């Protein structure tokens, strides 16, 4: 159990020395201190446990603390944690052999990074080097490719870009799921690449119509535009296939992998490229090997965790498990929408990449809070600006049918309570949410009856 003084010390440190706004929000929400996590559950120091359907938007694909990955991580930490320049870590060999076996044919050149954003930047450099005379990058409305400064210039989410604009004039944003819009954007031959999530993630979670990804790939091929598949959320079985592009039988020119790849232990990202892209890039007049080199921070622990995670995914055939268990969750969510249509708009999902499309951000928050009160963590978008955010549910692929049923039961209770709330109230609450950062932070804590003393205001 964490004492109030102890909690106060933690919040004071976070508020003064990390992120004052986030600390205020965590304090206002009365969040407990994290203790440990195992399997499908996260435990707090106050003894409470929660079924984790947030899973860090897909990171915990093989569950928390997966024993196989934990063993590999511990072994690497004890024996060979680093990955010095000029040396070869043996886990890198294992990882590359596995990647070559599972990736679509032809994607066999790798650049490693420490996050999805880093390798999105790698891909951006690669496609611009490989197509030097082409100016435009096509992305989908609502798409997410990271928040580093160059990755930001690819973002299809305007609210994250606005405070930093101008960021360049190369971006063409098309509606997601509309292949004709992609064909039109590429028609004049000015596109260097299309960056596409095979299933649109984030608060915009959308499963495209069958054949959409194939149509995009064909439009790219017809115009010699490079097709970059961002599988950062979808990779390694989340959608019921090892990679989401497999649903349409597509082979991209570049594929981006991250989130789930180390089983929830260590940051990593992999940019997988075809040799043709690498060869084209190397013909650029300003080519230098450092332009497509791996990050210095990629460690031996990270590659060991990644290699073990892929082994776990393959040995347990977790893509098949997602395909088998997914309908139980998506059907349950669809039934919840049918029974409680007042505040819900839909239940997008494929495999175990699922969510509830809510009527407005206040509904998303209220469902998230209600689920939390019933011991289930969900993937709240923290995005109060969009109209109908999706509350995401990305359980570990190692979860059980009983755990899915437990989550659906908690959802039924939450939605039954929510049905008693008027629509007008959720709209008013949404208006307040959209202004929450303008409210005095101390007021937020008082409104939520937080016992935490806010001692991190700016001087």
């Amino acid at each position, binding site marked *: 159990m964490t004492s109030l003084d102890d909690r106060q010390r933690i*919040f004071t*440190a976070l508020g003064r*020395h*990390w992120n*004052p*706004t986030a600390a205020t929000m965590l304090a206002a929400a009365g*969040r*407990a201190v*994290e203790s440990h*996590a195992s399997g499908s559950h996260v435990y707090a120091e106050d003894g409470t446990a929660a079924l984790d359907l*947030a899973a860090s938007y897909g*990171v915990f694909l093989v569950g*928390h603390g997966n024993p196989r990955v934990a063993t*590999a*991580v511990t*072994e690497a*930490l*004890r024996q060979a*944690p*680093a990955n*010095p*320049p*000029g*040396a070869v870590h*043996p886990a890198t*060999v*294992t990882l590359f052999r596995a990647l070559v076996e599972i990736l679509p044919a032809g994607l*066999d050149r790798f650049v490693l*990074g*420490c*996050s999805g954003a*880093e390798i999105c*930047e790698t891909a951006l450099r690669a496609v611009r080097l490989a197509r030097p005379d082409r*100016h435009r990058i096509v992305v989908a409305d609502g798409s997410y490719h990271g*928040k*580093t*400064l*160059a990755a930001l210039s690819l973002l299809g989410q305007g609210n994250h870009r606005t*405070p*930093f604009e*101008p960021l*360049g004039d*190369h971006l063409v944003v098309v509606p997601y799921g509309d292949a004709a819009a992609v064909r039109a954007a590429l028609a004049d031959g000015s596109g260097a690449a299309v960056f596409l999530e095979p299933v649109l993630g984030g608060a915009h979670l959308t499963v495209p119509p069958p054949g959409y990804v194939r149509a995009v790939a064909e439009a790219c091929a017809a115009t010699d535009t490079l097709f970059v598949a961002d599988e950062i959320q979808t990779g390694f079985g989340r959608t019921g296939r090892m990679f989401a592009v497999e649903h349409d039988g597509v082979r991209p020119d570049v594929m981006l992998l991250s*989130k789930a790849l180390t089983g929830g*232990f260590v940051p990593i990202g992999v940019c997988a490229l075809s040799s043709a892209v*690498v060869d084209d890039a190397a013909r650029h007049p300003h080519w230098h090997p*450092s*332009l497509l*080199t*791996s*990050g*210095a*921070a*990629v*460690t*031996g622990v990270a590659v060991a965790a990644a290699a073990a995670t892929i082994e776990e995914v393959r040995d347990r055939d977790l893509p098949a498990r997602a395909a088998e268990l997914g309908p139980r969750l998506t059907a349950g969510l669809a039934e919840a929408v049918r029974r409680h249509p007042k505040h819900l708009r839909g239940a997008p999902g494929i495999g175990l990449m699922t969510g509830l499309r809510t009527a407005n951000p206040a509904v998303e928050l209220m469902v998230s809070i209600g689920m*939390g009160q019933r011991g289930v963590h969900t993937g709240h978008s*923290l995005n109060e600006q969009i109209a109908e955010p999706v509350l995401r549910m990305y359980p570990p692929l190692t979860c059980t049918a009983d755990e899915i049923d437990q989550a659906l039961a908690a959802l039924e209770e939450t939605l039954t309570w929510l049905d008693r709330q008027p629509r007008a109230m959720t709209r008013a609450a949404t208006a307040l949410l959209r202004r929450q950062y*303008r409210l005095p932070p101390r007021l937020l804590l008082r409104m939520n009856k937080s016992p935490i003393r806010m001692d991190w205001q*700016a001087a």
Partner: protein
Amino acid sequence: MTTNSHLGARDAADLDDVAVVRRHLLGAPGPEAPVIRRQVGARIAAADGSTWLDAASAGFGPGHPTVTDRLVAQAGRTALSSRILVSRPLAEAVAALHQLCPDPLTVSYLCNSGAEALDSALKLAKGTHPRRRLVVGFAGADHGTLLHGLSLTHGVPLLPDQPLRPVAVPRDRPDELVARVRDDVTAVVVAPAAPGRRLADLSPDWWRRLRTACDRTGALLVLDERLTGPARLGVDLAATRLPVTPDALVLGETLGADAVPVGCLVTSRATYDRVYARRNPSLHGSTFGANPLSAAAVAAVLAACADDRLADRQREVETLARSRLAPLVGAGAVTDVGADGALVWVRLAEPTAARALVAELARDRVLVRPPDGDVVAVLPPLTATPADVAELLDRVAAAGGRLTTTGPDAGREVRA
């Protein structure tokens, strides 16, 4: 031995392993690269039975017992996190960073690499001055592997319309850099010292003039301490040796004990608030950033730096490096050596000689980074034992001594 072990004895020949990496990894090491079996400090036991000394990682060093135990324990509890709950390791890490950094640098943003941390500083600068499109630095300086850092290094924009365009000033014209800080500049990025450039090369007066130029224009002064901090220069941070305080300080891989990817941007509350106050905290961040395992690494590394007096140890490395390497200067192909703490480097008469030295060192089982032009960096881990450092420097001295002068400029004393 577990079935998924990557470190045990292998049936396949090691050369095959290297070939796999060379086939698939862009920028892969050479065919003679050692395959790692075990690492402690500077010592690498290779799969072929050879032992190498690491002067390439430039980090904290693997195998520190306290740090390793902390990381193993944290990995056993929670490594990454959904961050729905409150993180005790993160609170500990940011409090430790506050203790490390000079006031008013009190706010830390933890991310996944030094390169990301540097990028975060530039994003902060872009958010401070959205309409400005330039960032200034020294040409050829290493500022990481993301687009804007690479653009500064190469001195050209890598994309025709990237968010910030580089203005890269030649390294030997620091006054030009100060003069270029005008109202169109978002940020100036400078590393306090680097292989081939001493801390003392940029004078206190120069730093003061740079600070004044940044204050006058509002450009952020970003100090890139990915290599120099903590402890490497024989002090906690190079920033403590400068007469000015930067607006943003960037730390990198050393904080992760070479085991956990991490980077950190430290800035003042006022600078942070100009962009991020009263805005959704998800405006900047990453899935992995500020995770409990990386926070535990930061806290453990900073505690070890203090407990083991690692800055003092780097001053001993400096003394040893000067005594062992100084005799090389002028006697053959070596024209200069530098040692700021454990930031040690050797300048050769020409780039071919630098490449030759790297090859000689590889034959002597010393791992160094590829040369930067005519400079070879010798960067042992902070936790390398004195005996390993002495052996490492002896091997560098021996290899340097074997090189003979070649080419028209050979033997030239480069320093004025």
